[in-house]
């Protein structure tokens, strides 16, 4: 098919004297959904943070479109969207202000489009309520609203379904499938039973089989 976006070669990560994974190699191709699986504490979040470039405590090689990622950091972060455990929502700001702040460093988006994204995630009517007064699920929806206006070809989403209700999960699944069909690459971790066509799985052990 096409060139891999991100390629991991012999990744190895040790944390607190415990080998999380070793000799881990995989490719993230455009148009694919990759699910990182494993029990609690197996290093899923750590792997995602390594892929996103937030964690530097690893060895091996990470290639971004065929070249070492460390040589093209700016290219990489511009083309990668990461939503972590902590969704990056300021409790004191409103959903609108939060979304505007999150997009501010990436691309110029009109308030109209931001409003549409919030409506699209079911936050219509909550645009001007401080986020600390919203529920956990609604706060996550603010962060997920970014996905509706994102250009980045690679999405890295940690525990993306957490605190989202059934309808929201269905909508999000549809969005992810559609995105992969459009050629975007997505890496997720989730405990939610995600059943999507043509999904790549990366399974991490409990750490003690080494």
């Amino acid at each position: 098919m096409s060139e891999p976006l991100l390629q991991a070669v012999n990744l190895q990560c040790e944390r607190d004297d415990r080998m999380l994974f070793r000799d881990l190699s995989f490719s993230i191709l455009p148009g694919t959904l990759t699910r990182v699986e494993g029990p609690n504490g197996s290093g899923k979040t750590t792997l995602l943070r390594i892929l996103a470039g937030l964690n530097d405590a690893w060895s091996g090689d990470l290639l971004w479109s065929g070249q070492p990622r460390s040589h093209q950091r700016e290219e990489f972060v511009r083309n990668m969207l990461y939503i972590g455990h902590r969704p990056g929502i300021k409790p004191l700001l409103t959903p609108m202000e939060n979304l505007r702040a999150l997009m501010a460093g990436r691309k110029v988006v009109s308030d109209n489009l931001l409003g549409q994204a919030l409506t699209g995630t079911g936050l219509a009517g909550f645009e001007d309520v401080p986020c600390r007064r919203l529920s956990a699920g609604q706060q996550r929806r603010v962060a997920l609203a970014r996905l509706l206006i994102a250009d980045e070809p690679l999405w890295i989403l940690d525990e993306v379904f957490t605190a989202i209700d059934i309808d929201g999960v269905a909508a999000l699944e549809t969005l992810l499938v559609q995105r992969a069909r459009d050629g975007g690459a997505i890496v997720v971790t989730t405990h939610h039973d995600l059943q999507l066509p043509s999904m790549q799985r990366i399974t991490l052990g409990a750490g003690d089989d080494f």
Partner: protein
Amino acid sequence: MTSDTRAGWRPVTESVGSVRAMKALFLRDLKTAFRQRQDLLNPLLFFIMVVTLFPLGVSPEVSFLQQAGSGILWVAALLSVLLSLDHLFRHDYDDGTLEQLVLQPQPLFLLVLAKVAAHWVLTGLPLVLLAPILGIMVHLDGNSIGVLCLTLLIGTPVLSLIGAIGAALTLGLRSAGVLLSLLIIPLYIPVLIFGTGTVAAAGEGAPVSGYVALMGAFLVLAVTLAPFASAAALRISLSNA
């Protein structure tokens, strides 16, 4: 595959300029701070309280206050900046906005500079503006008050910039307060010495331009070097999270 089915994989080749991103971050920090005014008032109240308690606790003699006044104000300002430092990155770290900041395409040191600028506007600048009133209270003469404000105007940004390095380094720690002080106070001492030295020289009628130039040099050094160190420290702290 036709071109429109591949819409999701179109590399993003341009993003928002650094200045624009810095401005957005600066304004966001001001906005969040003004929604939590208590955090803003704390360092200011501390500053006022320390300066007012000195005459009560030590001596209300005019001669003593004239001599010690500039030192009292400087120490109080230094400590209240120190008090506010822990908030600089802590909230962003807790809610995950710091991760998003590090992953922005703009150079991190510029974004850090924008954050420190917001911190100074919210803590350092109010101290400078309050200093004349407190200066009158400790019987400093007009000339000394002017020089004191000038040194605080140059000195408090240095305190914020140096403090940002410590705040970034101690981010991952649960109780960072003590370690932060231990790390940062030795670096604050030169600023304190020259800050009070300038006012003392002014009080004796000696020329202060040399002192002020030296403090200006501190500021230039801090502006050019501290953001790089803070940015590196932030990456380390996040990497260990």
